[in-house]
């Protein structure tokens, strides 16, 4: 299988081959992978990649899926322009 042709994160263009390389370097959880490879930080906010990454972590490091769940979710769920937030704050004043 050509892991470089298996796309895991469409938003940040991260392939399974990229993921394996990061695993080998010791990045073994979603939070760290997010910071180093920007997975889950694009427009879909992890809705496409997170489950696949959880599965790949479990398989590669031989851990139960439950131990690889993605827990940290923060606002926002989508891109919001600063302009829009500024205008909302002005409306409130």
């Amino acid at each position: 299988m050509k892991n470089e042709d298996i796309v895991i994160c469409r938003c940040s263009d991260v392939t399974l081959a990229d993921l394996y390389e990061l695993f080998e370097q010791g990045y073994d959880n979603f939070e760290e992978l997010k910071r180093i490879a920007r997975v889950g930080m694009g427009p879909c906010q992890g809705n496409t990649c997170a489950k696949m990454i959880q599965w790949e972590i479990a398989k590669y490091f031989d851990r139960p899926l439950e131990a690889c769940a993605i827990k940290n979710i923060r606002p926002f769920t989508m891109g919001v322009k600063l302009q829009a937030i500024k205008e909302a704050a002005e409306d409130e004043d």
Partner: protein
Amino acid sequence: MVTSECVIVGGGPAGLSAAKELLEAGARVTIIDRNERLGGQLIKQTHMFFGSEKQYASHRGIDILEYLVNDLAPYGDRLEIRTGTTVAAIYQDKVLGCLKDEKYFKIKAESVIIATGASEKALPFENNDLPGVYAAGAVQTLMNEYGIKPGQKVLMVGSGNIGLIVGYQLLQAGIEVKALVEAADRIGGYLVHASKIRRLGVPVLPKTSIKRAIGEDAVEAAEIWSLDENWQGIPGTEKKLDVDTICIAVGLSPLTELLQQTGVRVEYVRELGGNVPLLDEGYRTTVDKVYACGDVANIEEASSAMVEGRITGIHAARDLGHEVENAGFRIKALQHELYDLRGGPPGEKVRQGIKKREVLA
């Protein structure tokens, strides 16, 4: 700031059913949905429902949507519907940050029901980013909502009810379904649906998965292969299929991103599709006056989502101090409906998952 007694996020079968109960009890309700039309997935469900008459069995999803919306009509003065509006954030003081047409505004809610439903799972395989690779929901939207064929020759991946039903709908639209593959050793969805597409000549192949998509700028073919007992592909078993569309229907996962922002406790329960909120019998999460029902709580059918929505609505109304006539009796009856819906082998997984969640709670 705009205020609301109860904000329901998601106007699908669960959210609409919860709204009805709350309105009937006298509450002020705001329904927010990011789509322009209420109904959630019911919009694309052109097939007839199973289950019992109480959940509109033998009616089409798209019609059920009309009944649910019409049910709310008498309460127009206490109901605010905000469609085309996305909740982009929920803060722990129940302030919701919403976005409509690029305009941001906040709503302060006394109680919040999260009925956001689910998202589709993706699948890693070679060239899975080629145009022509679709999620089943997208195919349903194209065909059933917009009347557009996704392609001419399809490989369906996944034999849950969605894969089976969408496979059948593709055939109805005059599209060739070359094969339906399933990684497990048995059909995931109802056998009636599987038999229907088998009778129409579609090979349904268990213990088989997609190995890769083939094509330069778009899908030109697909290669499938048999799986061993560890779900790994067996080299030498590859078969090439002449398709221009690959439809992925490998399950759903609860859309808990907003729920998790409220600070509720979630746990990963694989039988329920992923991270799910811990709930009590009234669909209360671990945060006061935050509720979750429907697919966001456990992946099931729209029928059970409607029943869960009604139970949640009754509890949420009472928690806000509204009186609900015959509440105890009605909740019991609804719980009984859920029990029936989850009976038999198809409901086994969800029964196990819910039991697991109860233990965790």
